[in-house]
């Protein structure tokens, strides 16, 4: 049984990859030999034309997949959010209903909190970790261990942290530490208070700090030694060097890290689904969206996804402008 699963997987890959290569080879061949052969009386014109068409042969599969899986859905979702289930109440009904819903407002607020806290904290810890490990003999091992959660799935990380937060004083590390300071019994850490969101954010910060650390550490290495030496000669202490000399020079990278994590935070779903699904106060937009999606309420689901899109929009515009200024 296992054999057949493996065989079908391998067959899939061979067909997929082989199929792609076959497509590229065959389409190029057809272009060069059948439609616009590089010989005969129009050889020169044909080569030019073929070269104008060829980029699109290379791009076609990617553009098709991107179009079908990302571009079309963006517009389709927008369309559905103003047409699906709005019979009574005008095109904006889905939006007015979700905004009238307490839980949605809590989710929106929580999402804002996540976006404010997680990127800031991850970047901050990442920066500290990058600076600390920079010149340590065992810095690479330390980095590796702090970076490791990056490989762990959000679901796995949620399990790991649920265990840390376990309400039993004999089981959960947090409660055990409270015990060291004299607490006699454990407390339920995640019990649906609005501040419990921060406990869930810790999980994502734990995962993302390594990402921030790796990138910022590379950026720190790029800071020219002369500027640091000059500052030290001027009598600056280590903190001054770090905050006044190094950090300003890598500000560009810090912003990139920050925005990258911000985008990720807006998509996060797994952590709340695994750790706080039962508490209204911990809801975020993606969990709300999935609730409506699962119960088949496509109007509300698409309306919420459009709201998420609107939240991402500023980052998107900024990213595109950055990229354009670089390619020029």
């Amino acid at each position, binding site marked *: *049984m*296992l054999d057949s699963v493996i065989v079908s*997987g391998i067959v*899939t*890959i061979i067909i*997929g990859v082989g199929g*792609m290569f076959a497509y590229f080879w065959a389409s*190029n061949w057809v272009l060069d030999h059948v439609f616009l052969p590089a010989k005969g009386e129009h050889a020169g014109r044909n080569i030019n034309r073929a070269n104008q068409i060829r*980029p699109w042969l*290379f*791009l076609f599969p*990617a*553009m098709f*997949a*991107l179009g079908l*899986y990302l571009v*079309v*859905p*963006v517009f*389709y979702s927008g369309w559905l959010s103003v047409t699906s289930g709005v019979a009574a109440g005008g095109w904006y009904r889905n939006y007015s209903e979700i905004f009238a819903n307490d839980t949605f407002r809590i989710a929106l607020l929580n999402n804002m909190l996540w976006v404010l806290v997680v990127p800031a904290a991850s970047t901050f810890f990442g920066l500290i970790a990058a600076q*600390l490990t920079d*010149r*340590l003999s065992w*810095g690479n091992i*330390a980095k590796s261990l702090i970076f*490791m*959660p990056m*490989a762990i*799935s*959000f*679901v*796995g990380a949620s*399990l*790991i942290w649920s*265990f*840390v937060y376990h309400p*039993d004083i*004999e*089981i959960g*590390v947090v409660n055990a530490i409270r015990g060291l300071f004299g607490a006699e019994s454990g407390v339920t850490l995640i019990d649906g208070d609005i501040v419990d969101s921060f406990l869930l954010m810790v999980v994502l910060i734990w995962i993302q*700090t390594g990402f921030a650390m*790796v*990138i910022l550490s590379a950026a720190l290495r790029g800071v020219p030694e002369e500027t640091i*030496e000059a500052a030290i000669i001027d009598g600056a202490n280590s903190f001054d060097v770090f905050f006044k000399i190094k950090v300003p020079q890598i500000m560009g990278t810090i912003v*990139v890290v920050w925005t990258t994590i911000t985008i990720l935070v807006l998509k996060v779903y*797994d952590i709340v689904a695994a750790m706080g699904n039962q508490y209204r106060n911990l809801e975020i937009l*993606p969990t709300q969206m999935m609730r409506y*999606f699962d119960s088949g309420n496509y109007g509300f*689901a*698409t309306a*919420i*996804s459009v709201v998420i*899109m609107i939240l*991402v929009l500023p*980052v998107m515009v900024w*990213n*595109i402008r950055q*990229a*354009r200024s670089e*390619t020029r």
Partner: protein
Amino acid sequence: MDNIAGKRTGLSLVTHLATLVLVIVWIVPTLGLLITSLRDQDAISQTGWWRALQGAPQPYVLSIPVDDQVQRDGLWVLETNVFAGPTGEALPDDILDRSRVDAFGTSRLRGPTTEPGETVETRDGVTVTVEANGDLRAAAPERMTGQLVLPMALVAPPQLTLDNYAEVLTDMNTAERQQARSMGQQLDDMLFSDEALFGPFVNTMTVAIPATVIPIVIAAFAAYALAWMDFPGRGLLIAVVVGLLVVPLQLAFVPLTIIHGWLGIGKSFLGIWLAHTGFGLPLAVYLLRNYMVGLPRDIIENAKVDGATDFQIFTKIVLPLSFPALASFAIFQFLWTWNDLLVASVFLPADTDSTVMTRFVVTNLLGSRGGEWHILAAAAFVMIAVPLLVFFAMQKYLVRGMLAGSVK
């Protein structure tokens, strides 16, 4: 350089300590669950994982037969050992190897509250003494009847075991596995039984590998075109790809459910491969293009002069040179598809034949075995084992890819 380092020595101890604290905070949560996954189910609920090497007292109610009582000095006396001898046969198997009595009592309502060696009286007027080694002496003025029912906390010697992993992979505990084997079940049948994690493990692999390989091929061709071919609209296309990098996946769920329905793909492996391909493409194209643009121009120009076609340049020169970028995207995409919960819950059916591990853990294990941490811990490590292997083996490429993606 040296003199700077010299001025820092005063701070270096602080740096070492601060780093150590940071690393400990970062590693302890994972370590705790790892140790838990190796512990006995009963021990987990009794003591914290940091006490894994000490024994954990377990409460039991022992029913001790009184047939061996003798009359002595006007009293009816029963002397026996709770671990051994004929009375031991009345105990459950797993108590027999418990080495020590931690506490005992005479009422199940009060539980084991008496220290070993002390003497207490039961409701029926029987005085009972139990020693730590299990020696029991009960005495009563009248002949005892029925059984002596005594709650006791027994300490088992600590042990680390892989049983939890076997249990979560087959959905059978040791006894059930033995029974299944005696009924002629093969390992294959057990691994693929309905509630076992092994099936989802295979399914996760079935999702992740094609969903990693397919987008690489598609993206590599597109990235080459965007990097080295001239055509109108190239700048616009690059901007679109950058924009699509941040489009929230949620927007695609409802439309794609409908579109997949039309196309007859429905919820299936094919559907999720295509979805992961679509969602992974922007990053793949972006990373690979950034890398390919940086390849030395003269190699490619020379090849063109020599009459090589674009297809040949791509397959023979650009693709091999881009290996580091391909590898780093492959790692990203593999980690992402392996760890994904959201896309799998939308594009795959939830039945045993196709559910992936993340979803299995969230819906089946958290849903139906919520309090059983021996199962959850082992499941967590089955789930993260492969990504961790990939991570530690290929860290270099991962870092390189991340730097290519964000530092300018």
